[in-house]
């Protein structure tokens, strides 16, 4: 999060805000579950909301303090399927997970030339060692599911998840697949030419490109009709919040377009606000023209395959499958 966003809230309400970050959401939950930490607001990634509600870690929201939810947020996320009525959360960022490549090294590559664009990874044997995938269980297996023609990216089917894991194991052998979460750095330094990528990371990639490499050297693809992998983060107020009203006001502050633009300037990640269109972020010079595909539109979001919570059994299946992929 951009510290300027925090500062603008502090100035607006005359209060002080302390920002703490965690390496992983599991680490955050472990600390929050003890009840020993006195935070007011938490940013959980969406698939974890049900766990947080069941564990009584977050509290129901009072929407009268968050009018921007109705005023600014995409209609489709005012009452999302994972939190009907936005009872516990308001949306923070949305992002797509697509394909990024260095078009200066791969001038003839175009994922749309394939009947299934994800298949292009399995056919990239001539650039072995230059192909990467996000080091993330949901993203990696999710892309393999789509490559196998399975669009339920939250499936609990052992058959489908195992087939996805086998496809990834095959891919590791075919292209000496690399796993990274800092794909923007590896694409920028040219050590990887083709990588599964998060849209927000691609928005930030101009800052990582070495001198002399133009931003037009990077391309990003995600299905134009929105039928691709998507994810989102949310904001919630913690059960033991000592400043619940201020916590709600902070959520409302984050849902203002000016705040969201200021935040995107630092993080590269967009928020699902009606005014945050590709045209607007281009006008604000937050994104280069060749990477506007990294901005998700509301109509695309409505058709996308949003990663959501898994059942306890499903979680076990996904984790075992991912362990097998990563220990090939």
């Amino acid at each position, binding site marked *: 999060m951009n510290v300027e966003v925090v500062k603008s809230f502090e100035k607006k309400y005359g209060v002080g805000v302390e920002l703490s970050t965690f390496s*992983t*959401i*599991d680490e955050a*939950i*472990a600390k929050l*579950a003890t009840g020993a930490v006195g935070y007011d607001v938490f940013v959980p990634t969406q698939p974890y909301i049900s*766990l947080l509600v*069941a*564990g009584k*870690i977050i509290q129901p929201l009072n929407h009268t303090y968050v009018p921007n939810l109705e005023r600014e947020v995409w209609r489709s996320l005012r009452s999302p399927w994972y939190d009907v009525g936005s009872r516990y959360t308001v949306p923070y960022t949305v992002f797509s997970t697509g394909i990024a490549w260095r078009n200066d090294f791969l001038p003839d590559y175009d994922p749309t030339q394939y009947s299934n664009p994800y298949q292009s990874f399995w056919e990239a044997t001539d650039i*072995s*060692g*230059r192909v*990467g995938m996000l*080091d993330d*269980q949901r993203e990696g297996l999710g892309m393999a599911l789509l490559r196998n023609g399975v669009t339920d990216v939250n499936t609990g089917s052992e058959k489908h998840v195992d087939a996805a894991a086998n496809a990834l194991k095959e891919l*590791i052998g075919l292209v*000496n*697949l*690399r*796993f*990274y979460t800092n794909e923007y750095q*590896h694409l920028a*330094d*040219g*050590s990887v030419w083709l990588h599964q990528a998060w849209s927000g990371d691609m928005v930030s990639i101009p800052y990582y490109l*070495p001198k002399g490499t133009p931003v037009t050297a990077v391309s990003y693809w995600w299905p134009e009709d929105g039928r691709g992998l998507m994810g989102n983060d949310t904001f919630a107020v913690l059960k033991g919040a000592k400043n619940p009203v201020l916590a709600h006001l902070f959520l409302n502050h984050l849902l203002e377009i000016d705040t969201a633009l200021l935040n995107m300037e630092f993080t590269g990640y967009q928020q699902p606000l009606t005014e945050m269109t590709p045209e607007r972020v281009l006008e604000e010079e937050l994104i280069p023209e060749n990477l506007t595909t990294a901005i998700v539109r509301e109509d695309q979001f409505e058709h996308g395959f949003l990663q959501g919570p898994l059942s*306890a059994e499903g*979680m*076990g299946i996904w*984790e075992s499958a*991912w*362990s*097998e*992929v*990563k*220990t*090939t």
Partner: protein
Amino acid sequence: MAERRLWRGLALPGVVWLLLFVVVPAYAVLAVAMGQIDSLLQPVPVWNPFDWNVGFIKEAFAGVVPGGTYWSATRNTILYVSATVALCFAIGYPVAYYIARLSGRKKGLLLLLIFLPFWVSYLMRMLAWIGLLAPNGYVNEVLSAVGFGHTDWLDGNPFSVIAALTYGYIPYFILPVYAGLDRIDMRLLEAARDLGASRPWTFLRVTLPLSWPSILAGTVLIVLPMFGDYYTNDLISGSPNTNMLGNSVNLLVQGGSQKNLGAAMVVVLMTILAIGMLYYLWETNRQARARA
């Protein structure tokens, strides 16, 4: 009697330190490895040994043998660590020997140069190597200039991982070996030469055996952290083909419901390393007895 009490008393801080920072954490790992998991997917340690669940431990041990899920990581760990120890010996021993035979300011300067890498964080040194080994980095530029062409150092190959491990850990090997060589009584070498031994023979029959305990100490010092190392591999390779046991532990404890299994993998690592440590203790005891 009072003197004996005094000596025992002096050991007290060390014993307390060991209890607090070795025994208690090791027991906590065991309690998690044989514990449960709660509804928030957080591991719940079980402190009472009578309630321990050995399922995760069994799974972890079954995983590291040939045919198991973690066998490739185990094999890679043994291969990479062995190759790194061999390289550290091949490069580090002559360096330590050379420094030990120097005297005065030169010795101090070279020791300082060996210590210098300690001043920069391990992670930063590895990140620097990424820049150097990148496709358009200085290493490739130099190789191209002398006609060797470009090499894909960072394409997930095991040689780069071994080279990075060697670079990262070699100072830890050189220092104890240097200390051991420096302590060797020169009169023993002179005696060997007086008795007709050639220079190579003196080295093989006197210097090398006398420096063996320090070689073992250096090996222990680098093997222990290397068995748990995962970031060197993550940074230099990023490919599952070069995964080590540390990467498997990191994968399991980072998220999800398999943290107990991750702790069980740590128990496996501790067991493997305990075997090595027992050998080290037996060997150093044997040497001490021989000297006595």
